[in-house]
């Protein structure tokens, strides 16, 4: 904890001292493309197939594009998360198979019962900048986000697998401290989602259906009582010069899915980003 805070302090202080470039007007309207790398965790309990809490600590890669006009803000994010996956309190499980053939050859095989975690997200956000706040250093925008999230844990158990195409209203607040420093926070709550989960029986085989089709065959529109998934993001951006910036982003997502049986999940990620301002 201490070392992280020290690093963060050094980062801020170091960048503040490096501000020797030309004076320029207020931080420009965003027209930036960027890449972010980070770490995170995804912890979940999917009662549809397991009483165990699973946890993955995936690496996170994000490609983003932000565009701002005098009236609107737009964003497109593409996220990929990859990592290993295991029950939180049973990380080192080992399976032991005894095999024998008709020739009498016996073989003992032991191997770890590990798993992997893959998640992908694509989201498009659009926000209206509330005019009365635009003169302040605290600027507020409201809008919405369309997002598709796929969580695909793989292993001996299929707990935690789902896809959700959701529509969420979203509020955004930006605090532009000066021409270099900007803090951002947003909150969104899905109001409708096309949710795909494994069915109660946890299998997808169906006549004439390929596996992917079998999985998506089980999709249904759910309202905010069956798919509860508020998310909070916080970000800090430092504008290094007129074309380059860097920052940190933290994202917290809570999932409480009620169908076919309850799944609760907590998703967190922290990413360092670099962006190019056009």
């Amino acid at each position, binding site marked *: *904890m201490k070392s*992280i*805070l020290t690093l*963060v*302090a050094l980062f*801020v202080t170091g960048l*503040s001292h490096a501000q020797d470039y030309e004076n320029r007007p207020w931080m420009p309207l965003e027209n930036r493309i960027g890449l972010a790398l980070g770490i995170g*965790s995804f*912890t*979940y*309990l999917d009662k549809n*197939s397991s*009483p*165990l*809490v699973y946890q993955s600590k995936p690496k996170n890669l994000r490609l983003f594009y932000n565009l701002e006009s005098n009236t609107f803000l737009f964003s497109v994010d593409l996220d990929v998360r990859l990592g290993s996956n295991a*029950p939180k*309190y*049973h990380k080192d*499980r*080992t*399976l*032991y*198979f*005894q095999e*024998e*053939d*008709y*020739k009498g050859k016996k073989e003992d095989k*032991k191997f770890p*019962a590990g798993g992997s975690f893959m998640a992908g997200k694509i989201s498009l956000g659009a926000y209206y900048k509330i005019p009365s706040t635009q003169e302040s250093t605290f600027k507020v925008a409201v809008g919405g986000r369309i997002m598709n999230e796929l969580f695909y844990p793989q292993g*001996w*158990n*299929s707990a935690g697998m789902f896809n959700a195409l959701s529509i969420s209203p979203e509020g955004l607040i930006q*605090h532009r*401290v*000066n021409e270099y*420093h900007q*803090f951002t926070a947003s909150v969104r709550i899905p109001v409708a989602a096309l949710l795909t989960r494994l*069915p*109660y*029986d*946890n*299998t997808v*085989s*169906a*006549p*004439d*259906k*390929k*596996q992917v089709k079998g999985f998506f065959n089980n999709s249904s529109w759910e309202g905010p009582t069956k798919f509860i998934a508020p998310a*909070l993001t*916080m970000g*800090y951006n430092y504008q290094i010069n007129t074309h380059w910036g860097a920052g940190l982003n*933290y994202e*917290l997502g809570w999932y409480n899915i009620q169908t076919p049986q309850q799944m*609760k*999940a*907590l998703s*967190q990620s*922290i990413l360092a980003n670099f962006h190019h301002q056009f």
Partner: protein
Amino acid sequence: MKKRNLIQSLFFAFVCSAFIMASCEEEIIGPEKANTPTTNFEQFWKTFDEDYGMFEVKNIDWKAIHDQFKPKVNDQMTDEELYTVLSEMIVLLNDNHLNLYPTNGELPVFPGGILSYRNRQLEILKVQEDYDIEVAKTYTTDYDQVTENIGYGKLPDNLIYLNVKGTDGMKEVEKQMAKVMVNISSARGVIIDVRGFYGGYDPVSQYIAGCFATSKKLYMTTKKRNGPAHSDFTEPAAWYVEPKTSNPYDKPVIVLSSRFTQSAGETFALALRQFEHITAVGDTTAGSFSDNPNFEMYNGWMFSVSVGDYRAPGEVSYEGFGIPPDVFVKTTKDDLLDGKDVTLEKAIEMFPE
């Protein structure tokens, strides 16, 4: 200076918020139940109670089984003792799709088993002693393994030996089976060997069976558990087998099965059995058709549960019994050790001159 302090304060707040939220994980997700032999036994029993698909068709009183075994469970018992109790419970379900996977690395995976009498003792068949693909291949020439699980070769007198031991990806199977069907179209007969087909994905089996179908026929209906009551099931899904080419193979076909032909191998055999030009030779199949996803207990152990109730046309259930062949032939261990596949030889003899 003031502004700089503000930035650092905001930054500090940012980082602290993240850490505070991270620490709320257990409150948000909820704690796991205590890991004790009693909670594990109850979780195991309850999962079967809520997900097993064949209590009704097999006429099993699962509550009575709970009451029979519960007195043997206490929180002082060892892993090995718990393993014995759970294994004995699943043997009563006579279901080869039920496996118990201890994860302590010391106790072996317990197969629900194909039950069989040997020397008047009921035991679980663990070793396949009536089939070896390497022995079968010695009867062929130009054997070509076209996918990981499909291979074929020539037999004497213009016959073809086709071995299917699992299911590959659907696209790969469609592509390779199209070529295979062209290459075997002039053969006077085909022997399809599924004695080593232990399972896979049913729609792929459905597709391969369609390569030998001469008309569209219902071969199976499936329903799966969708609620806690033993009678809670999805609406039945109808599985049809139908020709996959414009020139379906309609010459004699013999399918070789064994007690180890199971799951998607067994639904494949069932689909082929619907046609008059196809004859089954060998041994009865395993009697385990349903999908069987894995579930878990608080101690991290896993177990598979058959969640469906699969029926042949006419509502016939072969679960626990298997599909009997038209002609019973069984290769023995000694035959295999002598390099002989008696079942395959019998099948070759059965083709008309």
